[in-house]
């Protein structure tokens, strides 16, 4: 087996093990309903984390995704409720705006030589601020299209539901896996993460790739925003606060190195599911106070990363 697949395998095993452990404590967690919820409830996070994976693979970071999600929900709501546009038109506009936003950030990162951390931090302030300027208040969306989408799902045996948003996430992962591992663009992303100088000398179009990466990340954050608005039928400037950190954690738990160049989109999926698992377990348990919730989330994050380090240790490489 390809050695580089090992972290992926390890993460998957850790997930299965953790799930078994959770089920042994809370038997009710073993149901298609819970599994369906995993997909639906984490759809927006998963989609955003896919974009984050590309960014991190290229050696950057995108702190703006949560804010872009929030902004998109508000924009979609404004377009539908105030301007009376059809949701599909609203989605298209919102996705274009988000993509352009990301492209501008990517251009700033490349041409101004400012670290992505800072550019996307400014982007985060801008998107959050822009959302609250559009409408500080939350806007409910009432549209037959929304109700129709919400009511369409595939009923799984056992009462679980595979919803539209869940399916969108699965589709995004499928496409992203191909994009990352089977296209030239994907290779270029990994190349940038390996060494930007070498990549440039080897003929990777650095500017175009950088801009595309951040545009893709913001596009997916926008799509996550669309999903979020479908999920809640509302737009709200404070939606998805801090989701960037969840996404980063999911990517890292999924085995992608923050320094760039190593990792898998599929690992991110497991990372997202692991986070969903932790939260669901805490809800099922129902005895943790607010502060213990935070502590336990932190400790579990630590344990997953520690486990991974141990697996990595087993596969030493020359430094």
């Amino acid at each position: 087996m390809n050695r580089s697949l090992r972290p992926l395998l390890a993460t998957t095993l850790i997930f299965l093990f953790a799930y078994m452990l959770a089920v042994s404590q809370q038997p009710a967690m073993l149901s298609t309903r819970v599994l369906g919820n995993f997909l639906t409830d984490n759809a927006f996070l998963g989609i955003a984390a896919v974009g984050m994976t590309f960014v991190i693979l290229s050696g950057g970071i995108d702190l703006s995704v949560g804010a872009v999600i929030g902004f998109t929900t508000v924009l979609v709501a404004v377009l539908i409720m105030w301007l009376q546009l059809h949701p599909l038109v609203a989605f298209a506009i919102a996705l274009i705006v988000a993509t352009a936003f990301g492209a501008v950030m990517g251009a700033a990162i490349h041409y101004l030589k400012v670290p992505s951390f800072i550019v996307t931090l400014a982007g985060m302030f801008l998107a959050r601020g822009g959302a609250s300027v559009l409408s500080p208040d939350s806007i409910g969306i009432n549209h037959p299209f929304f109700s129709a989408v919400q009511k369409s799902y595939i009923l799984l045996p056992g009462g679980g539901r595979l919803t539209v948003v869940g399916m969108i996430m699965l589709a995004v992962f499928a496409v992203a896996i191909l994009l990352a591992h089977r296209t030239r663009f994907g290779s270029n992303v990994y190349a940038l993460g390996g060494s930007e100088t070498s990549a440039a000398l080897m003929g990777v179009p650095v500017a175009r790739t950088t801009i595309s990466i951040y545009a893709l990340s913001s596009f997916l954050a926008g799509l996550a925003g669309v999903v979020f608005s479908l999920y809640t039928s509302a737009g709200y400037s404070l939606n998805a606060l801090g989701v960037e950190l969840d996404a980063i954690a999911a990517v890292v738990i999924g085995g992608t190195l923050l320094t760039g160049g190593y990792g898998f989109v599929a690992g991110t999926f497991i990372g997202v599911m692991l986070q969903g698992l932790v939260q669901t377990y805490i809800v099922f348990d129902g005895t943790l106070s607010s502060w213990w919730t935070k502590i336990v989330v932190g400790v579990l994050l630590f344990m997953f990363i520690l486990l991974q380090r141990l697996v990595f240790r087993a596969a030493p490489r020359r430094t």
Partner: protein
Amino acid sequence: YAEGLQGKVIGFSQIGSESGWRAAETSVTKAEAEARGIDLKFADAQQKQENQIKAIRGFIAQGVDAILVAPVVATGWEEVLTEAKEAGIPVVLLDRGIEAPEDLYLTSVASDQVKEGRVAGEWLVANVGDKQCNVVELQGTVGSSPAINRKQGFEEALAGKANLTLTRSQTGDFTRSKGKEVMEGFIKAEDGGKNICAVYAHNDDMAVGAIQAIKDAGLKPGSDILVVSIDAVPDIFAAMVAGEANATVELTPNMAGPAFDALQAYWDAGTEPQKFIITESKLYTPADDPQGEYDRRKGLGY
């Protein structure tokens, strides 16, 4: 209490623990549940709606008997509440109402946030009389519904009163330190505070911060600058005892008590509770035994 709720499993999706008031609500809810023998499943959403939705879904999957939600925002609940309804689980809303068909929840136990702001404003209007008075406002977190509603209510009360003008309004994020920082800025910008006659804070924590800023500027809170706020947490009563705060509007942390009562009546006798149980927005001033109020509240977990 009667047998009614003994052994029932009830899920409670709380917003988080962002303020002392919120912590008090959590501890009061837990205490109420314990007194009634309820097995309360508590889930902290850390200020995120998506976490609340996940929690509710989790409760449904677990098959709890009822669900309490303190919604972080008014919109976006229809889908998940429909799911709860289909599963036959009654839902009770706490703190605030939501924008969703009324048949999706059993009842809503909430305060009227607009009214809170109005009560505070009316107190101020009554107190300054015809004197010219410039008011500064410390808003809650931008976009949060208490901030929007309390601002609206306050402005309604001031409407048409030419002598009362809202000169400055900034967000203090519902926190003491931001409240203090913003008030500091206001004082500097308004001629060392001489142009400010009153400060209205969307919660007591910011008011406590503002009081300190006023003192630091060499002015006397409570007389040089009037202080009116909302929530009625213990520390604002302590300030009243010291003569540094003038009025607060109570937001009771006991939302769960009425909610449990409604559930019990519903299960025992099948009585549909009224759809909106509005908690009282009671005004407290230094005339209302602030020391006593302080002592009564201190143990509640604020």
